[in-house]
């Protein structure tokens, strides 16, 4: 019996060793398999044998390069690798269970901020600064990969540098070109270039544009309109403010107070805004600019394409008689044109979990895969792929490029701020209280700051 117990114990020890090394175990001369957990199918990896394995294969140069990089990476690093679609729920479960247990299921995880932030804050995601040399791309040039700065000095959440990743989710300030010209107002882009595009100048423009054009005693043209969520985020960033960009709430900060006050004043002091439709969920106020009686509004490529403003696919013809021009948001009193952020961080990120064997190798493989275009940005962001981003915002080819450049500039300056994700947890939060003047900026800050702190505490775990 004693002997049996000993044997049993030895078997268990051996089993334990195998179990503990389940991710990292590989014989020295056998290629290691790097597993990359995702929640959608990604091509190509070591399991694919033909270009046609990717159902969306079109025969483009980029398809061929994404296929070829697999072999090159395998040979250079003596590895195999595979993308494993765990499903969204599965990837969340895997992060929260296997990494915590010290035996991560995957060597790299795809994540969104909902998963990624807690993983980074709670030590499940590896701080790349602890394992990589300073000259690693993600920590230095960031031509292939960059990382999300959470303000804690760590580099956990990586993002692949792509043109589309930069311009997507940007929300430039748009203006009606002909309306400004008709009112002899200088192009705001020129003011921005000279560092003179400020909140004060913006109000001056809006006041000029707010008019009773038919002389019936009723204002029928407005300087500004916009859906409340689009407006506040941009006013905050243009004033160097944020609400939930770290573990301490920023709602009560002076810079946020200025942004809230400015929002209040646009509607209630300067009276330069189109009357706001109560309880609009974005379906109305995002699109009234199409009536042609609005000077400035928050726009986006998807907003312009929704009603085919400029016939991006040639299906319906241009539906606007004026040109939409994008410009950076004016700079607030606490803002700085050089350092202001201009796009709320969103989208997908990647991280290497703590507990992975040889994380530097894993990083090198992932960086090499991400650089399938071999540093040739013209292939990475080829015209065919990016065409929609140009064509959707304007008819004039020059203006298309200019608008794209503004989006790219905004997208290059990301602000990590998850306040919009937390608003639902803040009872009573409604920006219409500022718009309709039922609450002052100071009241707004005081009413909701504690609830926001509680929501942030919950979010960051």
């Amino acid at each position, binding site marked *: 019996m004693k002997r049996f117990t000993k044997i*049993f*114990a030895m078997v*268990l*020890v051996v*089993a*334990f060793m195998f*179990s*503990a090394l389940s991710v990292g175990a590989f014989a020295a001369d056998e290629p290691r398999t790097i597993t990359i957990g995702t929640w959608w*199918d990604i091509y190509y990896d070591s399991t694919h044998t033909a270009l046609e394995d990717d159902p969306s294969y079109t025969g483009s140069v980029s398809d061929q390069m994404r296929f070829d990089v697999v072999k090159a990476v395998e040979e250079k690093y003596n590895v195999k690798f595979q993308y*494993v*679609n*765990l*499903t*969204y*729920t*599965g*990837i*969340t*479960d*895997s992060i929260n269970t296997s990494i915590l*247990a010290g035996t991560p*299921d995957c060597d790299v995880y795809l994540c969104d901020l909902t998963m990624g932030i807690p993983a980074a804050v709670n030590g499940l995601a590896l701080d790349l600064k602890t394992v990589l040399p300073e000259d690693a791309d993600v920590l230095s040039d960031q031509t292939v990969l960059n990382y999300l700065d959470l303000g804690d000095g760590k580099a956990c959440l990586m993002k692949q540098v792509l043109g589309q990743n930069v311009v997507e989710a940007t929300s430039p300030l748009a203006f009606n070109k002909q309306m400004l010209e008709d009112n002899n107002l200088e192009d705001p882009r020129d003011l921005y270039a000279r560092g003179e595009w400020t909140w004060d100048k913006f109000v001056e423009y809006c006041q000029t544009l707010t008019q009773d054009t038919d002389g019936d005693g009723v204002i029928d043209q407005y300087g500004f309109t916009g859906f409340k969520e689009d407006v506040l985020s941009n006013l905050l960033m243009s004033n160097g403010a944020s609400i939930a960009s770290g573990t301490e709430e920023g709602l009560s900060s002076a810079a946020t107070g200025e942004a809230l006050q400015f929002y209040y004043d646009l509607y209630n002091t300067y009276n330069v805004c189109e009357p706001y439709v109560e309880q609009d969920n974005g*379906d109305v106020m995002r699109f009234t600019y199409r009536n042609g009686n609005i000077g400035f509004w928050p726009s986006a490529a*998807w907003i312009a*394409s*929704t009603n085919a403003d400029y016939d991006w*696919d*040639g*299906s319906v013809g241009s539906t606007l008689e004026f040109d939409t021009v994008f410009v950076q948001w004016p700079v607030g009193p606490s803002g700085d044109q050089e350092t202001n952020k201009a796009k709320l961080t969103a989208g997908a990120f990647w991280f290497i979990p703590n507990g992975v064997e040889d994380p530097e190798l894993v990083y090198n493989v992932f960086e090499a895969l991400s650089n399938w275009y071999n540093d040739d940005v013209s292939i990475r962001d080829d015209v065919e792929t990016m065409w929609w981003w140009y064509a959707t915002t304007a008819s004039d080819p020059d203006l298309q490029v200019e608008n794209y450049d503004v989006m790219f500039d905004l997208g290059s300056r990301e602000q990590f701020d998850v306040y919009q994700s937390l608003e639902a947890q803040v009872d009573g939060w409604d920006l219409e209280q500022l718009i309709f003047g039922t609450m002052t900026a100071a009241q707004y800050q005081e009413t909701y700051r504690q609830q926001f702190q509680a929501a942030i505490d919950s979010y960051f775990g």
Partner: protein
Amino acid sequence: MKAKRMLALLMVALMCVSVFGGAAALADEAPASVDFEDGNMGFVSVYDGMANADACTVEIADFNGSKALQITNGSGKVPYVAFDVAGLLGDKAGDVASVDVTMGLVNPDGKFYACSGNVMLWVDGALSAEKHGWAVYLENKNPKSTVIELNPDKGEVFGEAAPLMVVTLEVDNGATAGAANAVLYIDDIRFLDADGNVIEADTSAAFTAPEGFGGSKDMSNLQYLGADAVELEGMAGKAADGWAQDGVDMTEEFLAALVPGAVIEIEYSSEAGDMWIVMPDASVGWSRVEQQTAATNLSKNICQITYEQIAAVCGDDVSAWGARLQCEASGAWEVYGVKVGQPTGLKNLAGKVEIPEMAGKAADAWTQDGVELTEEQLALLVPGSVIEISYASETGDMWIVMPDAAAGWSRVGNPNDGQPSTFDGSTAQVTYEQIAEVCGDDPTTWGARLQCESSGAWEVYGVSICSGAFKSVKGNVEIPEMAGKAADAWTQDGVELTEEQLALLVPGSVITIQYASDTGDMWIVMPDAAAGWSRVGDQAPVCDGSMAQVTYEQIAEVCGDDVSAWGTRLQCESSGAWEVFSVNIGTAAE
């Protein structure tokens, strides 16, 4: 020495825990509340009340060395499998703090594909919005145990108000990749109390469907298609953002059914509630059809577009429409199925009164059976009324016979005699006007006996006389302030209509009310009409206990033709305590 031995034992124990999965593994050793080894599954039912619900098959089968509940997908949609926890646990149901359930996957092609879904409770007559995700995502962790922690603050307390646990399988990577749908196995369900103790279950319990569970599709405003409607393969699961399109090439079978009179029916969900189709390759150019105007049910999860509507945009020549059919909506959307078929002509009926003696009647082909109607039942046969028959027959058809009509023994609605007929193999409808056509305009000469008949052996499950048909309505605009209004019997409540809402009241418009009331009826009140405080629709309410309609013409009959004299307040009322869920104003489609 003793200490060393103790240390060794401790290490062995720790290793055991590590190797076999820690605390979860220890919990797995505890007996399950339900392990399916006894073969019982009477406490399980498939829920089909959602637009994306799959008609899956549920049975006990061998899996992973023991018995388990096997769920086999039927049509590529989402299986919703409900467990009657209140029945299983009885008085102990309220003690459940968490549920540990084991899920396993098998794909018919022998490969492993990750799947995920949700576990929800059925709370207060509907699926709870609180969802607990589960996933089996790695082959070496299949099957996998998932622990659901209930949230009492969100109503997650099993009992009378929340009797069911519902498991769904929503993401199937195999199906997405073109393989067959995964077969899901559920095993070893442990209902745990707050201390982690397993609560014993009575697996002989029979499933008791709570109110609302047996809900069928909401076909308000829609036409019923025949059972031979053709599904468009590959459309289920297509999804895109608002104003983005996705679709597939139409199959030959689908195109063959897309003929004059045909209706394309789309089951969907969309953030904005709308849905339409796009014909991107039409020879007339990239074409949207019925953009934001397609006939849609009140639940906004099924819409229909007719052949004629497509022809109006793309021309009469189907071969010029292009092969590709896409869906689109103004908000993010997903499609669960697209089919095309001919409408059966069946209507949504109001004011149903059962003829209980007819249930269970059955006979051979071309043989009649029925009952003698009472005076009260005969009085229901008025112009506009409809006899509805729920049935089965070998040949699919069904009609009525009036054997004692003064005009002679008469068949009505018999397609074999070339008479107009409306049936779909399970429901048949015969109108007052069809009977009058055969038996004459005076119902007192029709005789009192009503019989059923078919060209094949048949059985009738129920017969009703209905006061009329609901109108199909297009372009419904909701009056959101009405939702939630409630009052006691013969008490009114409502809202002041805005100018925009009043402008919707034009000839042909219809007010549709979704409601519940103790007595089943519902009508409107115009308290400020110049003609005086007015009830409208109370004399012959067009309602079925959950939906009521009042037309512009009904209001005009009471309040006069001048809408500006109707007043701006609109109220609801019933003869029993009532609650309104939604009020819409739209235009009759006919």
